[in-house]
């Protein structure tokens, strides 16, 4: 069991307990926190968060992230299990960081 603190960009902060073998999205759904998600297998990146602190492991291939995203700390919470207490930035706006408007 690990304590995972979720931080939204509007300042909201919630700490949830994530059990062994549970993904962060499993836990946020159990607690009714409304963290976005889509495919649930690591392809679509709707559930993108940014790891601020701690040890968070993808248990399946994070196909929806490119190497540059991984290096910048972005994680896919539908396939991510904490191996320590963690702090993660969450919310719909985080996904929008991944690919900016290419022409602007």
């Amino acid at each position, binding site marked *: 069991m690990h304590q995972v603190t979720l931080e939204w960009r509007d300042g909201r902060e919630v700490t949830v307990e994530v059990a062994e073998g549970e993904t962060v999205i499993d836990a946020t759904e159990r607690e009714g926190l*409304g963290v976005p998600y*889509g*495919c649930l297998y690591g*392809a679509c990146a*709707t559930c993108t968060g940014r790891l601020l602190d701690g040890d968070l492991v993808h248990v399946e291939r994070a196909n929806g992230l490119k190497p540059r995203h991984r290096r910048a700390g972005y994680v896919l919470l539908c396939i991510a299990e904490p191996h320590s207490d963690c702090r993660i930035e969450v919310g719909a706006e985080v*996904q*929008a960081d991944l*690919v900016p408007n290419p022409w602007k």
Partner: protein
Amino acid sequence: MSTDEPSSTAEKHGHEHHEVEGPGYPTPAAMRTESEREKTAFVIALRVGMDVDGSDFIGVVDLDPESDTYSELVDTVEMPNKGDELHHFGWNSCSSSCHTEGLMRDHLIVPGQRSSRIHILDAEDPRNMEIEKVIEPEEIFEYDLSAPHTVHCVPGGKVVISMLGDANGELPGGFLQLDQSDFSIDGHWEADRGDMEMNYDYWYQPRHNVMISTEWAAPKTYYPGFDLDDVEEGKYGDSIHIWDWENKEHQQTLNFGEEGQIPLEIRMPHDPEETQGYVGAALSSNILRFWEESDGVWEWEKVIDVESREHPDWDMPVPGLVTDIVLSLDDQYLFFSNWLHGDMRMYDVSDFGNPRLVDRIWAGGNFADRQEIQGTEIRGAPQMLQLSRDGKRIYWTTSLFSSWDNQFYPEIGEKGSLMMKADVYPDEGRMELDEDFLVDFGDAPGGPARAHEIRWPGGDCTSDVWQ
């Protein structure tokens, strides 16, 4: 035939062995002239990728001008799960099922683009729909397919859905076939997919034994957002595929190269005799015409080129981004949207190889003078289109795809998108924005939603194919 009744007709049709009763209309002209005005719209609406803790839903919009709730969202049918990204949807049967006695146009097949979940809705009463069956993603993944997109009912009691990826969200995609009787999975539709890897939309002309499919990209490529590096690396489509409809075999690839990057929506004329059509190349912002030569080989040419435009706030010229196209039931007018520019255009296509621009409406986007309607900011720009059966009203929504909205119109992710309408005057070749019509999905019960594809009970300009 009332538009809100599940359609069924006993009329004799213009081709062989036609003594049976089936759903739909005997000809495109019968659908255009004998159906009444649309009174209800089904509008896909989604919460995926928003800070709204809710499911995607089908919005039921009142289109009856005599009604007290005209131009309002009167009902929502919520999906049982979150995160689906409902996108496109279709009917269990249409005019293509004219040989199938007793079959009704009474079920909607509603796929989740991200979840790969497929919902079957009983829509016999369009104002009181119910979810009848859910095909869970795991059942789809067993066929090594994902990301369901275009739904067409096809002759022989089947439903065929284009699938954009394999079970890992990678290439190749394929086609999933369902049985109309119980919506069980038959398996892959295609017998031989040849060199087809990417998939998106498809259209078919059974009288000429042809089906044509288009290309987006692998789900894992387009799901997270539009990255130009992926275009440069060849990860986005630039071709369409010609299939033998009966034998379900890939026959020919039409490669467009630079002229046809990301060919999305495809329309063939409703006239079942026609062996040509249009595809909208979203990124190249061209309309391409394709046709069959006398030797059975298919050719193509560019017939409309939307010029990119300079914008003071953008570093690079802004492409139009042709994201949806629709042909009127009489095949006389083509409409398409330029989602980044902010206009929706009307072309006279009575000479199919020489489309003639007759009118356009500017509303929202990056270039329209009009950025408000009824005091409401136009979030996004004309995108998914649907034309009335009589060709006199065109409706559209303004959201494209959750992650792509985030890049180009991020306000949609916070406040939802809109449904708008214009009156069309086909006899005069012009349109007028209806400023009295607006459905703001930002005010949807339970929180803002992104409105997407639109359909009418009883069939529409993008649902029906004739044998």
